[in-house]
């Protein structure tokens, strides 16, 4: 009897061990999927990871597919290798090329071990039957072989290669930022064909926002941010200077706020090592400039109550505008959008208040929006090109059509 029990234990042991290894792998995969922010794009009206959300590209909307293990409409029939190939090469099991709205140009850096873990996690999701229209682009982009040419121009597949002359922490940061985090998808401007522009990490316009420069330029980038400032921003969506809103609010909410402290530090350490690079701003406009004069009146009457006369804001609630990176980017889309339709920062466990800024679009016309933007970009030591009323008109059209 005792021998029998012992035998049962022996037989059960390998299985139990395999289970716990599986569970570790699945949990790691879930964490990595969070780092990759898969949920932000692949969640639609029929549930998490079930697909159906249209992703904006310069060529039209591309629907993110169903990643649940449903065998007809999801990836239930895919193997681990099929999945790894999609992540690494942007190719489906049947050979179809995927569009880079799926960030495979970044995911290609992810190790096979990590894509396998993500796949293991995806297989544990409840299968959801949800057919997604995969052919939404107009001709010629509807022909998926077009992507072959694009890949030749802009895509270099390859796993992340650690640099021996940098610390393990730096390498971990680089792996996350350049790979699953796909941060430069937004923080490097796209060229006309949707590839990386040459101005790496210098930011660019993004769906009616402006993703800021993340180099160490003091004015436009994170040159004056400490590692702790960056960690706080990514973990809570807010730091003493700024608050995440718009597309970054989503990144913080679904992804960085759920990352562990060590990874966030690694990301910050890597970013703090990006060499400063930014276009030289023009000299600040004189206070006697007509745009500055009306801009000042507008600022005093509309903005001062929260951001203070000296642009210093109120820590923890109202962002500092003096010396702000967001305020001094080359493009004004974020600023105009914030003023016209208002904005609310992301709520996270670390910063649950989520203060909002009211809309001013009803009160200010396009010239006035441009003038107050010009004013905050050229006051308190700030320096950035003046804003134009035509841009305010464009933004107003955009936020009326799709507020967020």
């Amino acid at each position, binding site marked *: 009897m005792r021998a029998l029990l012992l035998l049962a234990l022996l037989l059960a042991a390998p299985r139990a061990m395999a289970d716990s290894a599986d569970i570790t792998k699945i949990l790691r995969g879930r964490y990595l999927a969070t780092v990759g922010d898969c949920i932000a794009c692949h969640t639609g009206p029929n549930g998490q990871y079930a697909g159906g959300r249209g992703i904006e590209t310069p060529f039209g909307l591309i629907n993110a597919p169903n990643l649940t293990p449903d065998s007809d409409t999801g990836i239930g029939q895919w193997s681990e290798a099929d999945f790894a190939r999609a992540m690494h090469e942007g190719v489906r099991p049947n050979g179809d090329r995927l569009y880079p709205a799926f960030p495979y140009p970044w995911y290609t850096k992810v190790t096979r071990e990590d894509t396998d873990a993500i796949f293991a996690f995806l297989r544990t999701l409840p299968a959801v039957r949800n057919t997604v229209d995969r052919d939404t682009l107009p001709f010629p982009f509807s022909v998926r072989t077009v992507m072959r040419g694009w890949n030749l121009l802009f895509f270099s597949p390859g796993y992340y290669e650690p640099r021996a002359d940098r610390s393990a922490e730096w390498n971990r940061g680089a792996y996350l930022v350049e790979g699953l985090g796909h941060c430069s998808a937004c923080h490097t401007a796209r060229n006309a064909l949707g590839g990386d522009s040459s101005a790496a990490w210098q930011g660019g316009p993004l769906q009616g926002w402006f993703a800021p420069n993340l180099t160490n330029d003091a004015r436009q980038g994170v040159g004056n941010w400490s590692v702790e400032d960056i960690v706080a921003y990514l973990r809570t969506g807010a730091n003493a200077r700024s608050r995440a809103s718009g597309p970054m609010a989503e990144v913080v909410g679904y992804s960085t706020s759920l990352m562990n402290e060590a990874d966030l530090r690694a990301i910050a350490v890597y970013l703090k090592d990006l060499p400063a690079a930014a276009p030289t701003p023009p000299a600040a406009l004189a206070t006697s400039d007509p745009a500055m004069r009306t801009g000042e009146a507008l600022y005093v009457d509309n903005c001062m109550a929260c951001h203070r006369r000296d642009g210093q804001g109120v820590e923890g609630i109202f962002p500092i505008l003096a010396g702000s990176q967001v305020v001094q980017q080359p493009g004004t889309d974020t600023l105009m959008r914030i003023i016209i339709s208002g904005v609310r920062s992301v709520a996270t*466990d670390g910063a649950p208040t989520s203060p909002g800024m009211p809309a001013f679009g009803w*009160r200010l016309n396009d*010239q006035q929006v441009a003038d107050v933007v010009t004013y905050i970009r050229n006051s308190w030591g700030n320096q950035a090109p003046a804003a134009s009323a035509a841009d305010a008109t464009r933004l107003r059209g955009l936020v009326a059509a799709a*507020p967020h």
Partner: protein
Amino acid sequence: MPSTRRRLLAASALFGLAIPATARTLKEALPWSPNEAYPPERVVPGPWVFFTAGEAATVEAIADRVIPADELGPGGKEAGCAVFIDRQLAGPYGTSAWLYMRPPFARGTPSQGLQDEDPPAVQYRKGLGALTSYCTGRYGGRRFEALTPQQQDEVLTAMEKGEAKDPGADLRGFFEQLLNNMTEGFFADPIYGGNKDMCGWRLLGFPGTRYDYREVIAAPNQKYTLPPVALTGRPEWMR
């Protein structure tokens, strides 16, 4: 001992209540949506909406006697008091749309304000009719606006004292109504048609739609220098 036991019960009841009531983190509890604003519709001067041309001429003449133009600024007519009242009477105020308007209509005390079956629009129509009949009867067929300023003051004083009588309306009550609405027109935000160029606010030194005075409070006993600002802005907002 019963008392100990009761205390014990009370204590556990307290704990029972206190434990589940620990702080919870509420996320996105405050409602917010982009582009959200409920600005009042901006009154643009133009054709009268409620008044007839004759009624408007009378109200404008009254406005200029109640608030005469002087070296400090424009009078009630120029300030847009009649335009303000015209648009108010054409809107929900005119029909008492926001008030309980079912009988019985008891006579209220003065502090209870208007207690009448007739909403303001009807009060004005009747009041202006009565005023015209009072003036034409007394001043050789001339309407209020055709009288000399001295005669106009005579009429208004008689109304205020309850000495001016006409079967068409209670002219004393109507005078009070007019005075109230003129004041509102002179001091309400210009978006409603009166207080042109914030002339009323400039007289008072009223700052307008500002709401943050921390910097003013931090520097006491200094002259407040900011100009007033309206919902629609101030001249310095335009180039």
